[in-house]
């Protein structure tokens, strides 16, 4: 027994009525949902950036935008990462190395393509002999984020879109095919996030 209100607010605290104890401590859920919940809230991402978009990625990981609050921690090895954010220009030479790193990640693994370069070659698409026009030719991409570079808000918007995808991922049950999502273009210009860029457009009900 303690007088600290914080301690007493914890579920299962001794101050609570005996009748409630079991309810507070036991939660019933499906295994799949529980696993998805865990994955969604611990999307460790690979420390990997190839060009200027990487600067925005670092911003998003810094204290101002703070990806950590979403449970996203950078990992220095693909073996420990769930998510690969392709932040920057990918040349043909680099693309083969990107694929190698992707193959080293453990399943389930997700890929976010950040910025015009990774989406489609961006400013290099029509004139460069060496830049790959879109990393999706080498590895499957879950979320595309437009922008050159996308602001950290846009990246976070993309992460929310990805979280929705992760939430629908089923480890044991039947996997539904989740369509690829393009994160909100509004957020690329940096005023808000979560306004619905991460939502699938709903069919109007008849």
């Amino acid at each position, binding site marked *: 027994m303690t007088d600290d209100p914080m301690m007493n607010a914890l579920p299962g605290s001794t101050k609570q009525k005996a009748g409630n104890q079991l309810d507070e401590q036991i939660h019933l859920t499906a295994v799949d949902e529980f696993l998805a919940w865990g994955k969604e809230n611990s999307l460790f991402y690979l420390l990997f950036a190839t060009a200027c978009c990487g600067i925005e990625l670092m911003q998003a990981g810094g204290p101002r935008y703070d990806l950590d609050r979403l449970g996203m921690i950078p990992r220095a090895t693909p073996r420990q990462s769930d998510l690969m954010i392709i932040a920057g220009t990918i040349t*043909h030479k680099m693309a083969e190395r990107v694929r190698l790193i992707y193959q080293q990640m453990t399943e389930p693994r997700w890929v976010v393509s950040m910025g015009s370069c990774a989406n489609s*070659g961006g400013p290099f698409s029509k*004139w460069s*002999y060496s830049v*790959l*026009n879109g990393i999706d030719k080498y590895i499957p991409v879950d979320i595309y984020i437009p922008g050159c570079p996308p602001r950290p808000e846009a990246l976070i918007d993309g992460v929310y879109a990805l979280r929705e995808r992760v939430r629908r991922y089923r480890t044991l049950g039947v996997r539904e095919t989740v369509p690829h999502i393009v994160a909100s273009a509004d957020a690329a210009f940096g005023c808000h996030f979560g306004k619905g860029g991460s939502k699938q457009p709903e069919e109007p009900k008849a």
Partner: protein
Amino acid sequence: MSALSFAELCERVHARWPAVEAKRSDNGQPFLLVPATELVALVQWLRSDRELRFDALSDLTGYDLMKYPATPPSDAIAVVYVLFSYVQKHKLMLRVLAPRAACVVPSVSFLWPAALYFEREVWDLLGVHFDGHPTLLRIMTPQDWVGHPLRKDYIYPSEYHGVPHLREGQHFEHVPQREGDAVKAAPTAPAAPAKGAPPA
């Protein structure tokens, strides 16, 4: 001991190497045009002479003269050496022209090891073969890349290891491509959507 001006450097070089020409580039940069056959002996002397002492190779690069409004018109590849002396504090630029057909220039890497990487770069991007370089491998592009990208007549790749270079409906603008590579989706009408396309 003091830094020598370009005119003074020229004078000393000319006294020993009459075949070397003093020139000025379009933007007024003075340089010495050296025949490839005399390059090695000349740089050895430039490096070891007590009054010159060019102990550093600041830069080694190159460019393609093709389609360049030079007089007389030429399609050679030029290799540029920028030398600097930490002892005497003077610098000198040399240029060597390598004909396109037999693009060979002697390596200077035995004098300045810094040239090892520079020469690999010039080989990779311009296709100049440096005779005497111990490991003349590509340095920027993958080893199995076809062609030398900074040559003006470089042919753009259509794919690399089976992955097509362009997206569907996309096409290169104003660049040469390999026979039959003109992407099928390229518009034939001159009224191609010019949106966002840089001016020709």
